[in-house]
């Protein structure tokens, strides 16, 4: 009798341990897996579903990379096109969204570098000086009374965008992913293929650069 109860107890312990392992090491659930599988089989509608789910976020990220709606449209479309054409290579190790944002970040960085080399941001900055920037430099509002209003203001938006446009591509990517898209460090590490520690230290350096650029307006 004693042996039987001991065996049952052992079995229960084993079951609990196995359940723990199953839950601890189960693969990440991906809501998009089914749509991705259908799409690889040639179902265009399935890809349209994925587009509808992510296009606003991807467009926003693209916009923040290039700072212009026309360029952002083209870049965001290029990102989806690349995803569509390379879907067969998606192995499902990570979530589809992580993979998509990985493509978006890489393409965004490349487009940003390309535009920067061609002096796109410098030219745009100088043209802005004639209108918006000139105004805020002449009449800096008293943000101490209403800092949120200042931060949400159109001029401030432009200033912050200009500040991140001056960042190095790697710094810009990490700031966009964390502070604008709100990804976790774990997700950013996967998207950028970096260790989590490096992600944090790079984010810190990037923010410090932005801080220096915004010092005049924020202090």
């Amino acid at each position, binding site marked *: 009798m004693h042996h039987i109860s001991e065996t049952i107890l052992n079995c229960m312990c084993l079951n609990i341990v196995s359940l723990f392992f199953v839950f601890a090491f189960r693969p990440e659930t991906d809501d998009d897996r089914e749509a991705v599988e259908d799409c690889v089989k040639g179902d265009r509608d399935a890809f349209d579903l994925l587009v509808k789910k992510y296009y606003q976020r991807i467009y926003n990220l693209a916009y923040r990379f290039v700072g212009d709606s026309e360029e952002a449209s083209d870049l965001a479309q290029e990102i989806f096109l690349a995803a569509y*054409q390379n879907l067969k290579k998606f192995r499902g190790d990570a979530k589809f969204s992580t993979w998509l944002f990985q493509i978006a970040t890489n393409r965004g960085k490349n487009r940003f570098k390309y535009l920067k080399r061609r002096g796109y941001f410098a030219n745009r900055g100088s043209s802005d000086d004639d209108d918006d920037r000139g105004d805020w430099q002449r009449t800096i509002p008293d943000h101490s009374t209403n800092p949120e209003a200042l931060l949400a203001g159109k001029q401030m938006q432009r200033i912050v965008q200009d500040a991140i446009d001056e960042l190095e591509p790697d710094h810009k990517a990490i700031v966009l992913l964390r502070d604008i898209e709100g990804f976790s460090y774990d997700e950013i590490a996967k998207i950028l293929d970096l260790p989590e520690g490096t992600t944090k230290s790079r984010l810190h350096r990037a923010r410090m650069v932005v801080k220096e650029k915004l010092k005049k307006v924020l202090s």
Partner: protein
Amino acid sequence: MKECELVRELFVEVNDDEVDSETADRFREHLSQCHNCSDEFTLYGRTVQALSFLDRVDPPDDFLPQLALRLDRSSPPFLNYFRDLFSGAFPLPLPAGVTALALIVFAFLTFYHNGELMRSLPFETRSITHEAPMAAKPGILSTKKMPGADRLAAGPRTHSSTPVLHSSIPRNNFHENIKPVASSGFSTIADRIGADNLTVESTRIDRAVASLKRMLPNIEGKLVVERTHGGIGGKVLRVMIPARAYGDLTTELINYGAVESGAGADINPPIVSKKSRDKVLLYIRFTQPR
């Protein structure tokens, strides 16, 4: 000063509220004593806030239709199999890929050069004398019935070791070997069977036709019309070739099983192009061996 650096390194964690209580206490204690660090942390917090206050920008209304158009124009993912045949299955670093490509090109050039070499050898060493002149070697293009054989048996006939139908005709050899069209006609083996229309018997018509098509650019010829004809898989090709290439082409076709019969009743007789006297319109019929 060193402590200031350490404290500033903690800005990310403190801002995200990811430090333990002891570290948080020491951090606050330092800020209360160090105005520089305190100001820096305030500014740091405002910077993060400013970044997070950036508006979400909505895509334009025509974004989705435009994207749909671009997706429609692009190839679907499953067609990329061919594009990714090598890059996907055997991912190679760029230098290895380039080296492999260079080796392939080198091997091809060596092979091609050997072919040219064979052609440039003296006539006796590169030709095969056939006891039965029309006993073409078996292969894609083969013959079973050769009405012109008896006439050809009068003399030995050459057989190129590098068949034109499988590779290219070296242009320089063409000019040396082929006599131009003249009032006396074509001084080649083809002339003996008077083959303006040729029928090629082949068990693999599709490959024979493809082989001929590949050859045409090399002799500055072009395909005018291609259509089905006769039995299963039968085809008639109307090709325009330079007169100087006529002899070599027809010789090669004869070597591989061409016979002298016409291309068919529904086909117009061959003519010399009216536009230019140095072009020849040739009808070549491909049929299954009878």
